[in-house]
């Protein structure tokens, strides 16, 4: 059943001690049935935003409504409508998967008979039937994430919050999770609010993306729209045998900033767009620099991030890790 209301936030702010503005004025609107990707580096404010929208933290300022209910004044109603799989899988290692689901169902007021059925159904759906009666401490990371998702769906929420759901998972587990999330939105009309630091995840799953940095949304739209805004393709040149790659790099760097996108060659983000391509070819030819391969890549979400914030998402990750307080 498709929800009638999605997620709306207006001027959302959350400060912590020491005047830290983890969320610094966020406006967003997620339509019912949409998969909204919230992309940003560590420390950008993604999880704090999720905590506010899921009622775990009150906002310091601003308003938000989830499933038509105000997060500050109608917390219990919001919680009845949402499911959440937060950053930590938050499981009890001593309970089995089935026991987790029965507990979750019981706390949501599902009858004893229906709990059994619902637990079995969800375990089947996430592929944990065989492991259902094993203690969670024996589960792999992927299994824990799948159980986490099943728990979030126990009471058939209309809105699902997923906070970095595939961090640390192998590619196979990640793909499986993506398929399930996409199916939930497509077939069951569940609204999904997904936070991630992985470009390809946002690209693959999200109908629309909000890019967040330092607590603010710096860009928002579909992936195509965002990339189209930034007319900054990347050119990659693989030097031919016998050609000095430093010489190729020197030539290309005249046309833009070097990126790390090419392990075997040189990659540069063109400062003036695709028009420079012809000039690059002429420059390489003029200086006798032979290339085995020359590729033109369309802008990525990282390019979008760079254009909006002045730094790449990877660089922002390193910065965030360096700034992170010691535990």
């Amino acid at each position, binding site marked *: 059943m498709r929800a009638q209301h999605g997620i709306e936030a207006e001027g959302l702010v959350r400060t912590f001690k020491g005047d830290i503005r983890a969320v610094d004025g966020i406006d967003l609107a997620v339509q019912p049935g949409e998969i909204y990707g919230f992309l940003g580096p560590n420390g950008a404010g993604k999880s704090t935003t999720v905590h506010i929208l899921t009622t775990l933290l009150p906002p310091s300022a601003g308003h938000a409504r989830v499933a038509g209910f105000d997060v500050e004044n109608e917390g219990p109603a919001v919680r009845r409508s949402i499911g959440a799989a937060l950053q930590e899988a938050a499981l*009890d290692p001593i309970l089995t998967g089935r026991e987790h689901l029965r507990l979750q169902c019981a706390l949501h007021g599902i009858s004893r008979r229906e709990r059994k059925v619902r637990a079995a159904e969800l375990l089947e759906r996430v592929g944990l039937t065989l492991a259902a009666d094993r203690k969670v401490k024996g589960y792999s990371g992927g299994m824990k994430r799948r159980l986490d998702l099943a728990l979030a769906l126990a009471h058939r929420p209309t809105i699902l919050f997923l906070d970095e759901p595939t961090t640390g998972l192998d590619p196979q587990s990640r793909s499986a999770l993506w398929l399930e999330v996409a199916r939930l939105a497509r077939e069951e009309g569940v609204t999904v609010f997904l936070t991630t630091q992985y470009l390809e995840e946002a690209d693959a799953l999200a109908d629309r993306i909000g890019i967040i940095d330092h607590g603010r949304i710096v860009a928002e739209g579909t992936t195509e729209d965002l990339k189209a805004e930034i007319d900054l393709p990347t050119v990659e040149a693989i030097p031919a045998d016998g050609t000095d790659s430093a010489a190729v790099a020197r030539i290309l760097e005249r046309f833009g900033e070097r990126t790390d996108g090419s392990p075997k060659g040189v990659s540069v983000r063109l400062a003036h767009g695709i028009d420079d391509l012809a000039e690059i070819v002429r420059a390489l030819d003029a200086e006798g620099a032979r290339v085995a391969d020359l590729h033109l890549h369309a802008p990525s979400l990282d390019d979008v991030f760079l254009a909006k914030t002045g730094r790449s998402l990877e660089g922002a990750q390193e910065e965030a890790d360096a700034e992170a307080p010691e535990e």
Partner: protein
Amino acid sequence: MNALAIQVGQIAQRSVVRTLRQPASAIPPFIFPTALLAVTSAGLTSATRLRGFPSDSFLAFFLAFPFIQGALFATMNAGTDLARDIQTGFLNRLSLTPMRGSALIIGHLAGVVTMGFLQACFYLTVGLVAGVSIASGALGVLVILGLATLIAFAFGALGAFFALRTGSGEAVQGLFPLLFVGLFLSSMNLPRNLIQTDWFRIVATFNPVSYLIEGVRSLIIVGWDPEALALGFGFALLIAALSISASVWALQRRLTRT
């Protein structure tokens, strides 16, 4: 069935299941106090020859001790479990359900009380098998179990308060030496009037643990001593009330959900 009752039942069930599945945590509260009971009562048997010693069996005199020490162990285990829930984010998961805060505390303590009751039954059985005669009879046994369970509840609430306040298992474990000191600086080994060292006797007199021990002890070696029972139950209720209030306050600060 009432939603609160269901929530309390589920949390309590989880608490008991978790304890039983961790033998390394579940067994020491039964074994350690019993071992100390055996060693200390055997080692101090001759203390019954002191003038004014209230019993001719040191085992009977000392049998009250494991009830209190067992309650401490149960407190530490339960407090550590709750702190772990906070550290792992499991409390957040529970917060996102309709679970009421009071259900979390009551359910958690229901688990502690269940274990406390089982432990009390065990210690009483050990004492009876070892030949201790309960001066207050069959009714006194029920009162002992009731008082012991109340003491487990009171200390359990204290552990819950520390867990909710600190959110750290290590901090809860750090409580143990403090509680241990409180247990030993009491009338656990000798009646207060026979403690020779003045400062020790004064500390024991002001230590509420002395009255908890003496309350249980009176039922074993004296029979029905209204003053000892009133003080024992009184202090147990006082500790319980203060600890529960503190826990509720700490829970409100911990559960920042709207």
